[in-house]
C-alpha cells in the first residue's frame, strides 16, 4: 500500500464522488456530571472530582441530571429535530480501563432527538446537512501512559487513569450521509462543524472548545465512481480543529482515490488524524463490527419530556447564529470574513453588549478583536473570561472619545482593568494616566523641546513639516505619553510657523 502513487486532489474529485458523514461529540457545560453530583471543572487535579457513582464502585447507582437532558433537547430543537416524547438510556457494553462500569450509559435505538438539519452557508451557497440523531451519553475517563518515550501505551511502564472526566454529559450529533458535495466536501465539512459550534455556543450549553476536547469530531469518508454505489467508509477519530476537519476529509479523499486507482479496496477501519502531517493513519480495524450488546439501562427510568416543556424550550431558543451574524454584519457595516473572525473569537455577544452599553460598533469591535483577543490568546482563556466586561470596554471607549485618553494610554488602562484594578476611570485616576489637556503645561513642554532641538526646529521653520514628528515624540516622552499627539503637533507648528 505504501507504494501507492497519490493523485492530486483535482484528479481525485474528477474521478470519484465523496460521501461524508460527521459524528460530533459535545461536552455539555453542566455544573455537575450526568449521573452524579460531581463537579465538571476542567483541569482539576486527577481523580479529585469523583464519587462512588462515577467510579462505578459496587452498589453505586446513576441518577440523571435534568440539566443535561434539557441541554440535549435545546440542541435538538436548534438543529430542527423532532424531540422524542418517551425514550430510554441504553448500556453500550465494552471493556476499557478508562470506562469505570465497562459499559457506557448512552442511547441506542431510542435517541432523544431525531431527523433535523443544519443549513451551512459557504460563499453565498447554502448546503443543507441533514441530522440523523442527537443523543445523550456520558464521557469516559482519560488514560495516561507513562514511562515510555512516546506517551503511548507501547513501551509504557505504567498506565494511569484519571476519572475526572468520566460521567461528564456528552451529546453526540450524527449527520446522515452527505452526498453531492464534489470538490467542496472538505470545506463544507469544516463549515458544518463551525456552524454547529456557533449554534451550540449561542445556546450556552457548552464552551465548545475543540482544543480542550469539549467539541470533538469523527469524520467518515468514502468515495465512489459516479453512478455507482457508495464505497467503503473510513472513520477519522478525534479531529480537533476546524482546519483539521477540512484536512482530514481532503487527505482521506486523496488516499482512498490512490488505492482505488491502483485497483485496491478500502478497508473499513478507524484512522487517526495526524495534526503534524495532515493525513490519517490506521487504527483499529472494523472488519468485524464490535458487538456492544446494547440493552435498555435498567438503573434509570425512561425520559419522557413534557411536550409543554419542549414547546417552552423551543420558544426560548436564541436567534440562529447565521441569521444573527447577517443582521449584525449589516448593523456593524463589516465584511463577511471580519464577521467570521468575530464569531470564531466568540466575541459576537461581547461586542453586542458593549454596543448596548453605549460604544460605537467600530469602537467595541476594535477593543475586543484587538487588544483583548490578543491577551486571550496569549493567556489561553476564553475572551469572555479575559477580565474585562462589555461595560468597562464601553467606558474605556467613551474616555477616548472624550479626549481623556489617547489610544496608546488607553491600552495601559485596559491592562489595569484586566489586572482587576477597577473600572477604566478608576485605573486612569489611580495610575495618573489622564491626557494632559492643560495647554499651558503642554506649551511649556513644546517650548522646552524646541529649545533642546534647535536643528529640527530650524528644519520645520524651513517648511519641512514632516520633521515635526521628532519633536512630537520628545514632547510625548516628557508627558509620559499622556498628551494628545494631534494637539502637540498643532502647538509645535503654530510656534514655528
Amino acid at each position, binding site marked *: 500500500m505504501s507504494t501507492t502513487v497519490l493523485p492530486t486532489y483535482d484528479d481525485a474529485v474528477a474521478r470519484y464522488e465523496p460521501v461524508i458523514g460527521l459524528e460530533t461529540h459535545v461536552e455539555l457545560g453542566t455544573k455537575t456530571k450526568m449521573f452524579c453530583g460531581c463537579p465538571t471543572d476542567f483541569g482539576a487535579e486527577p481523580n479529585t472530582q469523583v464519587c*462512588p457513582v462515577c*467510579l*462505578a*464502585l*459496587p*452498589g*453505586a*447507582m*446513576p*441518577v*440523571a441530571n435534568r440539566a443535561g437532558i434539557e441541554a440535549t433537547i435545546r440542541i435538538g430543537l436548534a438543529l430542527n429535530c423532532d424531540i422524542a416524547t418517551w425514550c430510554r438510556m441504553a*448500556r453500550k*457494553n465494552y*471493556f476499557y*480501563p478508562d470506562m*469505570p*462500569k*465497562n*459499559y457506557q450509559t448512552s442511547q441506542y435505538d431510542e435517541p432523544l432527538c431525531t431527523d433535523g438539519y443544519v443549513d451551512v452557508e459557504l460563499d453565498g451557497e447554502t448546503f443543507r446537512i441533514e441530522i440523523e440523531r442527537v443523543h445523550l451519553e456520558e464521557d469516559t475517563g482519560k488514560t495516561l501512559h507513562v514511562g515510555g518515550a512516546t506517551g503511548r501505551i507501547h513501551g509504557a*511502564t505504567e*498506565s494511569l*487513569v484519571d476519572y475526572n472526566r468520566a460521567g461528564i454529559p456528552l451529546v453526540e450529533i450524527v449527520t446522515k450521509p452527505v452526498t453531492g458535495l464534489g470538490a467542496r466536501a472538505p470545506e463544507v465539512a469544516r463549515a458544518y462543524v463551525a456552524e454547529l459550534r456557533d449554534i451550540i455556543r449561542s445556546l450556552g450549553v457548552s464552551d465548545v472548545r475543540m482544543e480542550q476536547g469539549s467539541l470533538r469530531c469523527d469524520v467518515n469518508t468514502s468515495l465512489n465512481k459516479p453512478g455507482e454505489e457508495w464505497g467503503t467508509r473510513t472513520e477519522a477519530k478525534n479531529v480537533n480543529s476546524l482546519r483539521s476537519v477540512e484536512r482530514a476529509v481532503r487527505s482521506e479523499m486523496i488516499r482512498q482515490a490512490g488505492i482505488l486507482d491502483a485497483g485496491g479496496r478500502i478497508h473499513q477501519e478507524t484512522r487517526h488524524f495526524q495534526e503534524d502531517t495532515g493525513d490519517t493513519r490506521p487504527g483499529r480495524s472494523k472488519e468485524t463490527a464490535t*458487538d456492544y*450488546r*446494547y*440493552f435498555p439501562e*435498567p*438503573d*434509570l*427510568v425512561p425520559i419522557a419530556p413534557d411536550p409543554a416543556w419542549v414547546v417552552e424550550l423551543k420558544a426560548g431558543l436564541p436567534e440562529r447564529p447565521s441569521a444573527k451574524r447577517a443582521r449584525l454584519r449589516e448593523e456593524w457595516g463589516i465584511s463577511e470574513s471580519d464577521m467570521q473572525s468575530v464569531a470564531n473569537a466568540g466575541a459576537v455577544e461581547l461586542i453586542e453588549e458593549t454596543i448596548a452599553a453605549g460604544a460605537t460598533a467600530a469602537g467595541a469591535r476594535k477593543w475586543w478583536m484587538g487588544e483583548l483577543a490578543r491577551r486571550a490568546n496569549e493567556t489561553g482563556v476564553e475572551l469572555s473570561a479575559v477580565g474585562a466586561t462589555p461595560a468597562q470596554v464601553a467606558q474605556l471607549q467613551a474616555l477616548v472619545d472624550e479626549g481623556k485618553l489617547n489610544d496608546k494610554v488607553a491600552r495601559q488602562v485596559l491592562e489595569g482593568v484586566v489586572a482587576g484594578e477597577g473600572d477604566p476611570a478608576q485605573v486612569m485616576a489611580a495610575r495618573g494616566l489622564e491626557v494632559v489637556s492643560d495647554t499651558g503645561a503642554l506649551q511649556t513642554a513644546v517650548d522646552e523641546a524646541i529649545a533642546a532641538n534647535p536643528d529640527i526646529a530650524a528644519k520645520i521653520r524651513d517648511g519641512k513639516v514632516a520633521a515635526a514628528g521628532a519633536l512630537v515624540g520628545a514632547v510625548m516622552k516628557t508627558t509620559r505619553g499622556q498628551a494628545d499627539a494631534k494637539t502637540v503637533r498643532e502647538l509645535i507648528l503654530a510656534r514655528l510657523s
Partner: protein
Amino acid sequence: MSDLTRMTAAQLAGLIAGGEASAVEVATAHLDRIAAVDERVHAFLHVDREGALAAAADVDARRGRGEELGPLAGVPIAVKDVIATKGVPTTAASKILEGWRPPYDATIVERLRAAGTVMLGKTNMDEFAMGSSTEYSAYGPTNNPWDLGRIPGGSGGGSAASLAAYEAPLAIGTDTGGSIRQPGAVTGTVGAKPTYGGTSRYGLIAFSSSLDTPGPCARTVADTALLHAAIAGHDHRDSTSIPQPAPDVVAAARLGATGDLTGVKLGLVKEFSGEGAEAGVTAAFRESVEALVKLGAEVVEISCPHFEYALPAYYLIAPSEASSNLARFDGVRYGLRVGDDGSRSLEEVMSLTRDAGFGPEVKRRIMLGTYALSSGYYDAYYGQAQKVRTLITRDFTSAFEQVDVLISPTTPFVAFPFGSRTSDPYQMYLADLYTIPTNLYGGPAISVPCGLSEGLPVGLQIMAPTMADDRMYRVAAALESAVGTLTPPEL
C-alpha cells in the same frame, strides 16, 4: 441473659427502651451466640464486634440523655454481604471483592443506622446472589440450623440461617428471584420482598437491576414489618425508587394479628398447586389455606397462564443484566487483580482477574447473559423474555382485579441436602419456581412459615399488587396467628 437471643426484635426494643436491658447487653448476647454456634452454621462472613458494641453503646448513651428512641433502637441486625457497609468488608461472597471495604453506606444501611439498629456483621450468600442454596459462596456454604447437612436456601441463606440459629433477631436480604422468600421458607423464618422501587437499591451490589429488591427478614411477621418500615421509602439516589410514601405495613401486621380475615379474597394460583411440589409441602400448604378460610377469608382459584414461562424468561433477563453489571469487576479500580507482573497485556490481566475472581455459577450466568444480549440473538432471547415479562405482569393485573392477594407454597420442596442439585443447574433453578413471577412483575411478596414436612419447615407465599405491601402483611400476620411460629431444634 442468653434468653435475650430468643426474643423478638419488638420485645428487645421494649426492654431497651424501658431500661430493663442495655443495648450493649443485647448486642453482647448475640455476639456471644455467634461465637458459640457460627462455626457450625457459618451464617456470617464477617462479624463486626467492635462496630456493633460501639453502636449499641451509642444507643444506651442516647437513652441515658433522655432522647426518644425509635421502635428498633438497640436491636441487633445481620446484613447480607451484597450490601455496602462503610468501612466494613463487603464481598458479595466473591473472591473478586475479597477484603473490599466500601467508602460509603447503602441507603438502607444509613436508614438502619439512623433507626438505631446494631449491625452485627455481614451474612453469607451465594456469590453475587446467584444461586438458591448458598453453596455458591466463595467462602463455603451456610448450614441450615434445622439440619446442618442441608442447605439454608439461597441466595440469602446466611441471613435466614442467622435468624433460625438465634444469632440475630433481624436480617436484611435481597430478592432477585426469591432470595429472601426461599431461604425464609426452608429455615422456618419470615422474609418479605417489598415492591420493586419501594426500598432503595443504592449501595446494593447489582445482580439484575430490574429485579433486585432489598427486603426484611425476621422470625415473626411483626418484626419483619418493623424492619420493612425502617428501610422503605423514596431515595433520590435511586432513579427507580418510587416517589410515594411507603404503605403502613406495621399497622397492617397489627390488624392481621387479630386473626380476622373477613372479606379478604385470596387467589390460589392454579399453576402452582400440586404438580412438581413435594407431597409434604402441598399438604402443609393446604392445611394453612384451611386455617385462613377459618379466619374468614374467601379462597378463589386463579389461573395465571404465563407463570409457566417465568423461569425461562427470568433466566434470560437476570443473566443479561448481570453480565453487564458485573463488567465493572475487572481488577482496574478495586478488588482482586491477577497477572499484573508487567508481562501481560491489559486484556490478559482483566481476563485472568475475572477467571480467578468469579465462581462457576457467576461465570455461567455471565456467559449466558452475554450470549442473550449479543446482536443476532437479542430479539430471540432478551427481547422475547421482556415480552413474556409483560404477559406475566398482565396475569398479575387481571388476577388482582379478582382477588386481594395471591397465595402459593413458597418453594416446591423443603431444604435439600448439600450437593444434591449443584450438578444440575436446572434442578437448582426450580427452587425459585414459585417466587420468580413476582420479581418479573415487581409487586411485593412474603413467605411465612406454615408447617413442617418431614420435620423441615414449609413456607407459604403471599403476593400482592405493587405498593400494596400492607395487604400481604395483614394476611401474613393472620396466618401466623393461626399456625404459630416454628422453633428450630437446639444446635
